[in-house]
């Protein structure tokens, strides 16, 4: 999930390879898996809509073209930023052919999108994926007949098992333009040709773009033609005029014409033998249980508890102890320190193995403390992603989120924030309005600990106690809700209605979970360890130059006075600005060495969780939300974290809370 944060959406490398094959389809039908099947390139895939939010480019050995993987398109009319990216791709790239990936069990809507692509008049191939589940459910699809009726190649695949790859490649060698022409209401047709005449040349037919504009809202016109341009005004005018002439919403008129054809095709080409139950009664009951008001809440708590036990107690406790104390403390470090003891230059020696040494601090923290914890977290997380549980959380949380101006969908970026806040800030694109994106970003920046932090917090609370953890979570949630509520009152606008599709529960494939975990852990090693080394180097230099003590003395009134924490924690906060994991590892180590008591650990953890997001997260927030809003969020978070920590400390001490 940490892939390619910096890549611009539609400007792509490999421009020499023309033309492009664009993968298009509904969310969660397996486009990314097909992409991997075709190109052999690894992309993160999961069982929930919206895993892919940016365009990816890859190459196939068998086909002389560049394959583009796009975010899922729910309707023909895009609703959120990432859906617009898909539309933009079709309009701006040199589209050689389109491969529509669809769900074989959900043929009506798959074909409905096919109709829109047929209007676009591009060479295409239809791939019906997840054919195994469709078969188990008793659907028999006559692909030969469907292909003949549509006039385009149609293939069945099971991308998760690599089935149907050869057939798909063969079909992709001869994509075809469908000879079908759907006829719409004459008034719609007339307006569509009027609009098409005003449009610039696109790789897809002007008629299709015109129909999309007619069935979309007016803001789409501005998006494509520029706000206030003569063309934009003219098109808006035509859309408004056409809508006034017909009774029903234009989108419905257009969709009904397409649907009529789809229904005929389905009657001809699909037979359904019911009775072959596919979903086990267990999956069925689990489905009901996990969205039930009480059952769902219990399940949520249960999952939290499992995470606590596995990541906190087992990994951050036992595994980290072993790696830190035994592997590093007894086996690795002593010989290294000893061999360097005779090294002639003390400065170099201290740089490597001193109190702020690259090996003794940088490497030890990142490899011994953070790496096992974050890997454990990624395992749980990847597993959860593949079951299809995450969208069920949306159902549970929707009403609660309505209080803070978000709808259930926002739980996806928030939950991803427990993996990596940087990625989560990008994923806020799946939200429909700017208002929601700002609120979600604010909550993410303020109080969602990322995977390593989360793991180490769990590790610390494994020693303080489960009740303390519950108090911590409750306090944090309360603050986030209050902040979100306030933000929703301050920002103008309304929360859009909540609607989402729930993918079926699937048993996660070990290979996919392992692959994702490995990919993410690898990313962690590559991206994060250099930051640890840099942070350690900075501390080393500051310490040598005497600046560190100066800074600590300067911050002492706040850290020791206001927050009641040892002066050493200042170093942790400085490191925290570089990487959020680092401060977590630092406090975890301090707590382990008995430099923090339980109460101090509680306060320090709260401040650290609320404290500013790390450097890369800050950059992404500013990039996604703009300089003004982005900076505003960061400044607010900084001030708030310190203030909240001070208040928490005072309250806990006044009430004589001991853990």
């Amino acid at each position, binding site marked *: 999930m940490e892939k390619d944060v910096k890549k611009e959406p539609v400007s792509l490398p490999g421009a020499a390879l023309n033309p492009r094959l664009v993968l298009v389809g509904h969310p969660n039908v397996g486009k990314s898996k097909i992409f991997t099947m075709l190109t052999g390139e690894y992309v993160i895939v999961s069982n929930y809509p919206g895993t892919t939010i940016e365009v990816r480019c890859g190459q196939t050995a068998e086909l002389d073209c560049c394959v583009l993987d796009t975010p899922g398109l729910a309707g023909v009319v895009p609703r959120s930023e990432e859906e617009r990216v898909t539309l933009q791709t079709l309009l701006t790239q040199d589209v050689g052919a389109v491969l529509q990936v669809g769900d074989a069990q959900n043929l009506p809507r798959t074909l409905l999108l096919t109709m829109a692509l047929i209007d676009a008049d591009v060479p295409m191939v239809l791939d019906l994926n997840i054919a195994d589940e469709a078969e188990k459910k008793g659907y028999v699809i006559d692909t030969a007949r469907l292909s003949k009726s549509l006039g385009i190649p149609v293939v069945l695949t099971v991308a998760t098992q690599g089935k149907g790859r050869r057939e798909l490649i063969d079909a992709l060698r001869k994509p075809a333009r469908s000879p079908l022409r759907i006829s719409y209401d004459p008034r719609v047709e007339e307006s569509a040709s009027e609009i098409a005449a005003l449009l610039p040349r696109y790789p897809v037919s002007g008629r299709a773009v015109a129909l999309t504009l007619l069935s979309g809202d007016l803001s789409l016109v501005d998006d494509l033609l520029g706000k206030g341009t003569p063309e934009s005004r003219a098109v808006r005018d035509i859309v408004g005029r056409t809508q006034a002439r017909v009774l029903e*919403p234009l989108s419905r008129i257009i969709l009904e014409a397409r649907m009529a054809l789809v229904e005929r095709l389905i009657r001809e080409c699909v037979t359904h033998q019911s009775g072959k139950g596919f979903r086990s009664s267990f999956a069925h009951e689990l489905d009901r249980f996990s969205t039930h008001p009480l059952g769902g809440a219990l399940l949520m708590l249960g999952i939290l508890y499992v995470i606590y036990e596995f990541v906190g107690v087992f990994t951050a406790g036992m595994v980290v102890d072993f790696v830190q104390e035994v592997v590093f403390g007894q086996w690795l470090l002593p010989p290294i320190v000893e061999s360097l003891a005779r090294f002639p230059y003390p400065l170099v020696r201290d740089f490597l193995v001193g109190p702020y040494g690259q090996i003794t601090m940088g490497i030890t923290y990142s490899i011994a403390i953070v790496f096992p914890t974050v890997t454990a977290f990624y395992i749980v997380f990847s597993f959860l992603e593949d079951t299809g549980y995450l969208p069920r959380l949306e159902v549970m949380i929707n009403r609660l989120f309505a209080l803070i101006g978000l709808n259930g969908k926002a739980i996806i970026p928030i939950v991803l924030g427990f993996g990596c806040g940087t990625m989560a800030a990008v994923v806020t694109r799946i939200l429909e309005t700017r208002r929601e994106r700002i609120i979600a970003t604010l909550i993410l920046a303020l109080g969602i600990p990322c995977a390593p932090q989360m793991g180490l917090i769990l590790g610390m609370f494994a020693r303080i106690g489960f009740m303390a953890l519950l108090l911590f979570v409750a306090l944090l949630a309360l603050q986030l809700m209050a902040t979100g509520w306030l933000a929703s009152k301050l920002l103008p606008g309304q929360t859009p*209605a909540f609607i989402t599709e729930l993918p079926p529960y699937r048993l996660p494939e070990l290979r996919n979970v392992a692959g994702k975990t490995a990919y993410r852990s690898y990313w962690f090693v590559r991206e994060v360890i250099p930051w640890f080394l840099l942070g350690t180097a900075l501390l080393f230099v500051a310490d040598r130059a005497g600046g560190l003590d100066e800074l600590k003395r300067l911050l002492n009134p706040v850290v020791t006075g206001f927050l009641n924490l040892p002066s050493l924690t200042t170093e942790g906060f400085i490191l925290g600005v570089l990487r959020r994991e680092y401060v977590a590892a630092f406090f975890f180590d301090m707590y382990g060495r008995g430099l923090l008591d339980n109460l101090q650990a509680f306060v320090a953890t709260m401040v650290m969780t609320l404290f500013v997001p790390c450097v890369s997260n800050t950059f992404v927030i500013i990039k996604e939300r703009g300089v003004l809003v982005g900076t505003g969020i960061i400044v607010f978070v900084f001030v708030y974290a310190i203030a909240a920590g001070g208040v928490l400390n005072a309250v806990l001490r006044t009430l004589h809370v001991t853990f």
Partner: protein
Amino acid sequence: MDEPCRPCATEELEEILEEIWTTLETRGEAPAAGARVPPEAAPPEQTEKLVAEGLARSRDGEVFLTEEGFQRARNVIRSHRLAERLLHDVLNLHNEEMERSACRYEHMLGTEAADSICILLGHPRTCPHGKPIPPGECCECCETVLRPLVVPLTELEPGETAKVAYIGTRDNARVSYLTSLGIMTGRSIQLVQRRPSYVVKIDESTVAFDDAIAREIFVRPAHRVSRAARGGGWRFRWRNGRQ
């Protein structure tokens, strides 16, 4: 409603009131007793007729609706839009045919007949064009004895299956999205649960949404099952293991 009702010009006064009402709506003003009649809605010779009938009164060169005029306009609009709903949803007439008939019905339907249609249709809130239907007395006591033919999804019991009658929104993006999820006229839909969010099954998809969306999906329940016969929802089924 969008095209003036020429064939029934005999009911001139009601037509004028109807025009005033829709003009006010289009301008975003709530029609009310005492509302100023926009000059573009009715030329002076028409407003004079209204004034003569006591449906409007003029002051300082401007014309205002009287209470009686407002009530009369409201009834005409209500009858017209309810008639449209009836023709569209139940009789499956579309466009011009529906429009022509609705124009005649609006002058024939009395308040009681309109209320009956309203009950039959399940107190619809908008006409097929998405414009609001002024509520009648029957809508206030919504505890319907007779189960209406077409109800919003919110009225369905968990476990019940129904056919989608229509989607009551003019939001194009939403219509497109719902359609792509398979929620479209004529499709069979099963309500799984109402809380904490609505969950429905259509074909092989499961879709979740909130009340705002559920209120916009109007369905024809397949057959009536009493609550007792079904065992009152999820908990009962859970205890029995299977449904």
